């Protein structure tokens, strides 16, 4: 494994809604806020915006690509003095119509293999983290 190699996270889910409706939820700021984070998104390539998490973290983003009702891509960067926490990644949403709705695919790329730490994960995922920790601790005994 080389240091330049990056990892990605893929999450897919089929939703019983048409792509046009999902597209609105992905691109209208007041709707984005309802499921993702507070934001000043605009569906314009090159537009720079911030996503603000409940935990106080602010992500620097820039729209990279837009294909209405099909695909949306933006940067998802988090500046941190500690390189373990510093993150430069790209999030791409792809919408594929299915017989009963839409397959939504999210791919986030850019994690460096040596970078196992998380900024938001540590906050957003506290509950899961402690549940997992308890499991691990139980198994370690």
């Amino acid at each position, binding site marked *: 494994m080389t240091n330049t190699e990056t990892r990605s996270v893929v999450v897919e889910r089929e*939703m019983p809604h048409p792509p046009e409706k999902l597209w609105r939820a992905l691109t209208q700021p007041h709707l984005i806020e*309802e*499921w993702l984070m507070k934001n000043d998104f605009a569906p314009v390539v090159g537009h720079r915006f911030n996503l603000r998490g409940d935990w106080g973290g602010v992500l620097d983003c820039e729209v990279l690509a837009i294909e209405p009702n099909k695909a949306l891509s933006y940067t998802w960067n988090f500046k941190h003095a500690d390189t373990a926490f510093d993150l430069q990644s790209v999030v791409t949403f792809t919408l594929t119509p299915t017989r009963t709705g839409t397959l939504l695919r999210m791919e*986030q790329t850019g*994690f460096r293999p040596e970078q*196992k730490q998380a900024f938001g994960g540590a906050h*957003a995922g506290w509950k899961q983290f402690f549940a997992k920790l308890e499991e691990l601790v139980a198994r370690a005994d």
Partner: protein
Amino acid sequence: MPMPTTRDVLFKTLADPTRRAIFERLCRQGEQTVGALTAQAGISQPAVSKHLGVLKQAGLVRDRHEGRQTHYSAQLGALAPLIDWTSEMAGFWQKKFDDLEDLLKRMDQ
């Protein structure tokens, strides 16, 4: 016997439910005095201080003296060896997709 790793120390330190509860409280509520922590912990102040000492040795908390009071705060960075970025982010997105589905249902109305 192999030398205990950082992970081992962190697991051992957080395996105690009372100690973990103190640490979680510091994570969620920010800096606290020993007195404030004792009031919520349901154990004696010396017991709370002992747990804080163990957390401090593991690098999970930092103390700050101000007058007679000692304030403790969580050091989230110390958890880094336990956290895997990719699985944490996958969990993050799964949760966000749940919220998105809830929103889509509401948009029908």
